[in-house]
């Protein structure tokens, strides 16, 4: 029976598969069906494997890119441009975060109340918004540039559709026009165009960083996609400029230009010990943040750093160098008497404004005698005079950290005629900038050494280059002091509390290659205090037309005010007695009087 059963079951299995031992549950399934299913499942798996292989190998780049597009965001992290600060850390230029607001013409939706609020926040006339909205053929227009971040946040709360902002930076210049020529300005893309902004472009500019992040479905940042590259912010530049001194210099020059109805004016203040430029002021000036209100021509005139770029014949301020070399080489002594009657060189007469028959060398400087200076110059071989002028920096570009600085003109002595040499003694036939003259005068202030100048803060005393002996420099200093005392040409240069010395200069301005009879440049270059000079101040007023045109009348008062304030700000105690206008009484530590 059992054998029969086995036989019969094996006979069934040949036709179908048995899924149960019970005959009641026996299902007679044809074998092709199960095989078909096996094949289908196998094909299904093969399809999945093929797809996986395609996704992972063949189309990997595409799918990775698609995934990244949806979850990975890469953006630049803007670096801010370095600040420019003065010697005390006060800001002269800094970058502030601003936004540029764009208006999408298709998406813009705003109620009349929202529009009114928008116009108020943007500080633009309603007409301007209407004009922007009426723009044809554009999808998006700029609504406002350089908008503060705070204002943009306020605008966002209005809920106006079709507005977006792009973040950026704008340069801010807190000191405005007073330091405009020193600091310069940048363009819309924050690249230096003028002044220190241009000179230190490489240091000031930053390098943007990069960040790649992964965002989840609800926009949260959940991971870094790549290692972030941090932005490199621009380096801070600390200048030698003192904003207080700069302000005083600017203010006094501006007032003098207005008072004398002059064309322009400049002033330079140099720290004699360190060679730092404490102030470099020009008028007319401009506000670097508001220069778009000026025409190109107006900006070109106002933005010119006259103290550095403009070179003129310096006039009588050159005379002390001639006297110094005559003393240095032993040709004369300070009290050597010289005849100063009018005389001619090469058929061209040389005259004095206040002629005298004779003067000492010291008086020649004190009274600014052209004749005396010319006679001194004629005693000096041309090569020596040329060498002296070159040694103090005339005819050479000043070594200063500034994009443009005039070198002036000093012809080689081989090209000089006697008349040229005589005129070089009183400042005609060569040209210098105000900065060159100021630097040259450090030779007298530093006992015979010319100091290298710098626009960067430099607290250590600078090593100078010796040109004159200390004895001669001190003797010339006495002559310069005489020029500011009674009988000199610059009594208005005197400063309250400080002994001063200097030299006036009044040169005819050139017009069309000829000297204009009624156009002058008034100079004064001096130093203080004379016992131990700390600063050299040079002032130039271009073409004064009212209240005199002599350096002693126009430029010397500016020197007086600037030098007095500068020394006070530098904590230099007065070296001459002043009539005190205050009563002071010493007190002890406990608050009681001693």
């Amino acid at each position, binding site marked *: 029976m059992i054998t029969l059963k086995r036989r019969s079951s094996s006979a069934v299995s040949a036709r179908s598969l048995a899924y149960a031992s019970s005959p009641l549950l026996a299902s007679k399934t044809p074998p092709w069906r199960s095989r078909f299913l096996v094949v289908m499942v196998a094909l299904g798996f093969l399809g999945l494997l093929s797809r996986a292989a395609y996704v992972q190998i063949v189309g990997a780049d595409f799918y990775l890119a698609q995934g990244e597009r949806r979850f990975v965001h890469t953006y630049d992290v803007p670096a801010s441009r370095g600040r420019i600060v003065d010697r005390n850390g006060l800001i002269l230029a800094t970058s502030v975060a601003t936004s540029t607001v764009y208006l999408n013409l298709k998406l813009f939706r705003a109620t009349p109340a929202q529009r009114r609020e928008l116009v108020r926040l943007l500080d633009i006339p309603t007409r301007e918004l209407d004009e922007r909205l009426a723009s044809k053929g554009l999808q998006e227009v700029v609504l406002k540039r350089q908008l503060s971040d705070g204002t943009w946040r306020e605008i966002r709360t209005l809920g106006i559709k079709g507005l977006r902002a792009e973040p950026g930076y704008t340069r801010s210049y807190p*000191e405005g026009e007073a330091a405009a020529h020193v600091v310069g300005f940048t363009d819309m893309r924050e690249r230096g165009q003028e002044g220190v902004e241009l000179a230190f472009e490489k240091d000031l500019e930053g390098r943007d960083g990069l960040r790649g992040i992964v965002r989840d479905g609800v926009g949260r940042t*959940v991971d870094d996609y790549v290692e972030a590259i941090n932005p490199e912010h621009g380096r801070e530049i600390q200048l030698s400029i003192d904003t207080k001194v700069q302000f*005083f210099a600017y203010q006094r020059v501006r007032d003098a230009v207005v008072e004398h109805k002059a064309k322009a004016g400049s002033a330079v203040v140099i720290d004699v010990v360190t060679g730092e430029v404490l102030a470099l002021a020009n008028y007319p000036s401009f506000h670097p943040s508001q220069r778009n209100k000026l025409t190109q021509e107006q900006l070109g005139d106002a933005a010119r750093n006259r103290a550095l770029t403009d070179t003129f014949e310096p006039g009588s301020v050159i005379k002390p160098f001639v006297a110094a070399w005559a003393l240095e080489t032993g040709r004369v002594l300070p009290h050597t008497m010289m005849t100063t009657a009018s005389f001619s060189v090469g058929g061209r007469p040389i005259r004095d404004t206040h002629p005298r028959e004779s003067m000492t060398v010291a008086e020649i400087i004190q009274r600014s005698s052209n004749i005396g200076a010319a006679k001194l110059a004629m005693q000096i071989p041309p090569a020596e005079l040329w060498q002296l002028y070159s040694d103090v920096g005339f005819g050479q570009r000043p070594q200063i950290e500034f994009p443009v600085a005039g070198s002036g003109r000093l012809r080689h002595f081989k090209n000089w005629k006697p008349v040229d040499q005589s005129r070089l003694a009183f400042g005609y036939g060569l040209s210098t900038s105000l900065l060159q003259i100021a630097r040259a005068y450090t030779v007298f202030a530093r006992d015979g050494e010319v100091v290298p100048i710098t626009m960067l803060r430099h607290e250590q005393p600078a090593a100078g280059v010796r040109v004159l002996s200390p004895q001669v420099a001190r003797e010339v200093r006495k002559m310069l002091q005489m020029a500011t005392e009674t009988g000199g040409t610059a009594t208005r240069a005197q400063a309250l*509390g400080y002994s001063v010395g200097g030299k006036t200069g009044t040169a005819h301005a050139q017009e069309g290659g000829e000297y204009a009879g009624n156009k002058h440049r008034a100079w004064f270059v001096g130093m203080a205090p004379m016992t131990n000079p700390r600063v050299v101040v040079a002032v130039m007023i271009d073409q004064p037309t009212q209240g005199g045109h002599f350096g002693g009348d126009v430029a010397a008062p500016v020197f007086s005010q600037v030098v007095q304030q500068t020394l006070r700000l530098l904590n230099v105690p007065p070296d001459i007695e002043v009539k005190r206008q205050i009563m002071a009484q010493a007190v002890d530590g406990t608050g009681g009087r001693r």
Partner: protein
Amino acid sequence: MTRLHAVLLLALVFSCLVLVQTSYDSRRLFDETTRARDELARLDAEAQRLEAERQAQATHLRVEKVARDKLAMRTVTPAVTHFVVDQAASGVAR
């Protein structure tokens, strides 16, 4: 053996739950850090702007004008200055 498997299974499930929680916390904290960093950058920029604005409101030009026009002040001269010597700094002994 079966008991050990059950314990290991429970440990595995617990480990998985902790992993999910940690991963969630990590993402949440990363998001918070990013927001804090962005806020720091924004406040830095704001501080810089305010500093520039403060200085622009207190330029020497403006201070001088207000002092002279509104407060009737005048520029200090040596005649109204009492100079004192810091004896400790200058090394002067009296």
